[in-house]
């Protein structure tokens, strides 16, 4: 989009000011209000000459000079409530739609004009007028067919070179033969030319391809925007205590990095100074935070929960424990690459059948005594009438409508084959931490009730002053209950100890309770007993309803977790599911392979790095939006809300999609059952072909549009 780049500011700008262009990803933009806010916030910064949001890609392109810096832009957006991140590669990600738009436009233009001429021929033009019209049609049609047909010819050639066949092979053969026959008819001044039908076929098929590509582009843009959020780097402590930010790729063993509370480690290392607790749930599934002090080993990807610590890096980049998991994943994607899309499966049956029918017609008419020319015309008309016009739309239209419906309900579908694979699953394995549960500490409701009105107001006031994960969780939970913060002064935060402040005449504190087990914080108000607030990883909302619905769909669920047996047993008792604990990434993958060997089609639902290989190995996989990068990348579907109801909804829509696809196939085949005997009898004219083709395509589209409502809950009582 070079032409979309801003023009350099005219004369009045400061001399020598260099025009810079920065692209920021802003995943939180959803609507016109967000767009306006982002653009106005950025435009108000001095040095920014233009800001333009791309809502599809969730990015904003900013034209600015040196007075506005990238961190300044990010900070301004953070002030407006949007998390932003500079996009490193300025190259637009390759779009699957754009290369198809030009052929689609050419096919549409040529189809309209040729149809205009064809209608006159059908209406009775003959003699020199008909010859003239046929020549005009050829002049428009042949170049247009050559150009608009290229995507199909190229794909068919690729398939044939590999010794396989796909939908594009019969399409290409039909198009080339029909064009050849029509040219021949035009030259000899014959009665019928098929340019209109051929172009209409290409137009409908290209429309199907564009829809398919559009779905992939949209979902990928959504997932990419989530992915780029990941902070990948660390604050490096230099000689003499200087601090500098360093990206994960540039970290070297031996460097000392400072990791604040609430930050994720970018490399494996040993602790030099400080003690803290580390949440390894993303890496191992272990839900209990592990306390580690000087000399203890900590792993990349774990979350520092309590105090800032200095860590000496012992492994970075490809040597970390993260990279081992990535290597496991590379080997795991075989089941999916073996999946043959339903359109291609249909083509494998369809192509030989169509070509046999055409050959039979040719031989039959030769035996019946017709000339070679007549027999050939009939054989080719059979090919044209059976060309999979409705078949080409049957799958993509249904999948695009379904994916759009799911996207509106917060489920991103990466591609159409994901829906096909998801529709067939009969077993589901669910990770525990972060998947069945929220994966973050949530304060115990009973403890919050026990705070009382004043206590809650003071707790919220204190907690809102800290970036500590527990404080943030507490503030979020209290704010969600509608608590108003009390007015406090002189707030002091001591790392590792907590917060102290004055509330009127009384001293108040929120901090680590002495000798408490597990995750907890203590609220102290002078003159009142100390109140302990416990935190636990809570199950996702609608967990029980979602699991019951999955069971009702005939899907056997089980828990497959890397967490300790006690925590898993608790969750298993709560959900009533069989469970396996202490599963390593390789063990999870092995469990799936074993089920697949026994004939099951497995859905894996997981979020962690440790689920990556399992997500890649399963027949279909779903990850929550809060998952690790690895999880989101490996999964076929990503759901953005908290509610687990996204699982039965996604499976339900996938099954409904396959039902509609099968109905569409039935319609397309039913049309052929009617039309082929006519064609073989030599009764099909270009007019009949044009009418039949467009009618069947419209029927298929109308049937697919019913899926727009598929993502609605079966009952209206669903979670808001």
């Amino acid at each position, binding site marked *: 989009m070079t032409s979309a780049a801003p023009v350099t500011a005219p004369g009045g700008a400061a001399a020598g000011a260099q025009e810079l262009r920065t692209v920021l990803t802003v995943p939180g933009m959803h*609507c016109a209000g967000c767009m306006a806010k982002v653009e106005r916030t950025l435009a108000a910064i001095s040095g920014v000459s233009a800001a333009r949001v791309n809502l599809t890609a969730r990015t904003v392109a900013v034209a600015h000079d040196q007075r506005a810096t990238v961190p300044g832009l990010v900070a301004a957006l953070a002030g407006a409530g949007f998390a932003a991140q500079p996009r490193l590669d300025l190259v637009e990600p390759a779009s699957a739609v754009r290369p198809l738009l030009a052929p689609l*436009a050419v096919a549409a233009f040529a189809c309209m004009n040729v149809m205009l*001429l064809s209608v006159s021929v059908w209406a009775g033009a003959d003699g020199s*007028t008909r010859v003239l019209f046929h020549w005009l049609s050829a002049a*428009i049609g042949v170049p247009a067919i050559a150009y608009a047909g290229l995507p199909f010819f190229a794909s068919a050639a690729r398939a044939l070179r590999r010794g396989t066949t796909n939908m594009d092979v019969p399409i290409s053969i039909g198009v080339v033969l029909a064009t050849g026959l029509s040219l021949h008819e035009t030259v000899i001044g014959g009665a019928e030319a098929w340019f209109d039908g051929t172009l209409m076929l290409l137009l409908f098929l290209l429309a199907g391809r564009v829809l398919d590509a559009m779905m992939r582009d949209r979902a990928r843009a959504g997932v990419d925007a989530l992915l780029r959020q990941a902070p990948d780097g660390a604050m490096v402590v230099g000689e003499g205590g200087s601090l500098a930010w360093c990206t994960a790729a540039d970290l070297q063993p031996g460097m000392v990095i400072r990791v604040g509370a609430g930050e994720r480690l970018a490399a494996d290392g040993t602790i030099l100074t400080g003690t803290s607790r580390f949440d390894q749930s993303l890496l191992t599934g272990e839900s209990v935070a592990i306390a580690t002090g000087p000399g203890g080993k900590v792993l990349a990807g774990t979350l520092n929960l309590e105090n800032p610590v200095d860590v000496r890096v012992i492994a970075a980049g490809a040597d970390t424990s993260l990279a081992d998991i990535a290597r496991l994943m590379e080997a795991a994607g075989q089941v999916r690459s073996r999946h043959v899309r339903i359109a291609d499966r249909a083509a494998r049956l369809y192509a030989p059948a169509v070509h046999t029918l055409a050959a039979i017609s040719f031989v039959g008419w030769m035996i019946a005594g017709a000339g070679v020319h007549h027999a050939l015309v009939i054989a080719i008309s059979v090919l044209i009438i059976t060309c999979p016009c409705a078949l080409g739309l049957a799958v993509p239209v249904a999948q695009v409508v379904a994916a759009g419906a799911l996207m509106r309900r917060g489920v991103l579908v990466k591609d159409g084959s994901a829906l096909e694979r998801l529709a067939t699953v009969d077993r589901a394995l669910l990770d525990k931490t972060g998947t069945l549960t929220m994966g973050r500490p949530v304060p115990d409701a009973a403890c919050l009730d026990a705070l009382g009105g004043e206590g809650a107001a003071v707790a919220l006031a204190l907690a809102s002053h800290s970036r500590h994960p527990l404080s943030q969780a507490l503030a979020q939970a209290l704010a969600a209950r509608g608590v108003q913060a009390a007015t406090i002064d002189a707030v002091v935060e001591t790392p590792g100890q907590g917060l102290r402040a004055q509330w009127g005449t009384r001293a108040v504190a929120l901090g680590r309770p002495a000798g408490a087990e597990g995750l907890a914080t203590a609220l102290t108000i002078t003159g009142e007993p100390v109140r302990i607030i416990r935190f636990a990883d809570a199950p996702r909302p609608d967990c029980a309803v979602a699991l019951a619905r999955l069971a009702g769909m005939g899907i056997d669920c089980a828990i497959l977790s890397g967490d300790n047996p006690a925590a898993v047993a608790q969750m298993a008792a709560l959900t009533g599911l069989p469970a396996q604990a202490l599963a390593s990434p390789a063990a999870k993958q092995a469990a799936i392979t074993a089920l697949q060997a026994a004939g099951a089609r497995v859905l894996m639902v997981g979020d962690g790095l440790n689920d990556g290989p399992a997500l890649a190995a399963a027949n279909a996989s779903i990850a929550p939006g809060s998952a690790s990068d690895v999880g989101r990348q490996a999964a076929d579907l990503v759901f953005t809300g908290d509610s687990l109801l996204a699982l039965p909804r996604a499976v339900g829509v996938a099954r409904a999609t396959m039902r509609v696809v099968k109905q569409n196939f039935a319609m397309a085949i039913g049309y052929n059952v009617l039309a082929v005997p006519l064609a073989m009898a030599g009764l099909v004219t270009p007019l009949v072909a044009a009418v039949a083709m467009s009618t069947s395509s419209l029927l298929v589209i109308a049937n697919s549009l019913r899926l727009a409502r598929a993502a609605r809950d079966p009952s209206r009582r669903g979670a808001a």
Partner: protein
Amino acid sequence: MTSLALLIPIALAMGLIGLGAFFWALRRGQFADLDGAAARILIDDEDDRVLP
């Protein structure tokens, strides 16, 4: 026939103009952000800043 000789070139020319306009729009990035274009109409013009 004389009317045809006039009308057919006109029809083709108009079609070609449409095709040309589409290609122009495609190259100018008009189809780069379809969701944004749909939402942009809803933005209120709170401030009519005149850009220099």
